[in-house]
């Protein structure tokens, strides 16, 4: 419980640091979200592949570091602005890299 709380604190703050690294133009914020979701999926793959059950890292840090709601909201904003191609490719790129990187981490650590 304390592990999840601490992991959640640190995971969210680390995600925020990625947003601070980019200017908050909309495509750059999406690039930061894409980056945290990709890195988080890779690291989770490594944890799962190695058989780790760390609540601090898995439920806490990585769960909070990655985000689904921010991705969904940014895609909706793109769609509302008529940027169907940008929103659609953002979603597809995130889904694909998340899956591939999770698989990579999983296979490497098995």
């Amino acid at each position, binding site marked *: 419980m304390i592990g999840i709380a601490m992991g959640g604190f640190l995971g969210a703050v680390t995600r*925020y640091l990625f947003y601070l690294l980019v200017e908050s133009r909309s495509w750059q914020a999406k690039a930061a979200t894409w980056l945290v979701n990709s890195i*988080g999926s890779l690291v*989770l793959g490594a944890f799962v592949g190695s058989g780790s059950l760390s609540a601090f890292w898995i*439920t806490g840090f990585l769960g*909070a570091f*990655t985000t689904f709601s921010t991705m969904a909201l940014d895609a*909706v904003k793109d769609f509302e602005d008529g940027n169907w191609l940008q929103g659609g490719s953002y979603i597809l790129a*995130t889904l694909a890299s998340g899956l591939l990187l999770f698989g990579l981490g999983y296979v490497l650590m098995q």
Partner: protein
Amino acid sequence: MKRILAVGVGGMAGALLRAGIYMAVAGGLGLWLVNIAGSFLIGVAAVRLARKSAELRLLVSTGLLGSFTTFSAFSADWFHYLESSVWVGLAFAGSMTVACIASAATGLWIGRRGVAS
């Protein structure tokens, strides 16, 4: 510093709430619940908190709802579904994504309706 603390405290609450829902709901249903509910609420918050302080937006949207929902566990579930069947994997990823996008759109819509009236 205040902003980092806002994100961190929100993130801690979001992770604990997510863990609570995982414990309360059996199987993979918990992930559906947190991602759909969180996407809806971040849409509402985007409208309702637009004119509030940056700290409150960081606490609620970036911290709490960003951490409550999660992408890493989604990638893991998708990977495992694909291992059993390509079609089940694609159906899982497609329906989760569409459900969350529809939830965020609904949240924005409801948030705006409340503001207008």
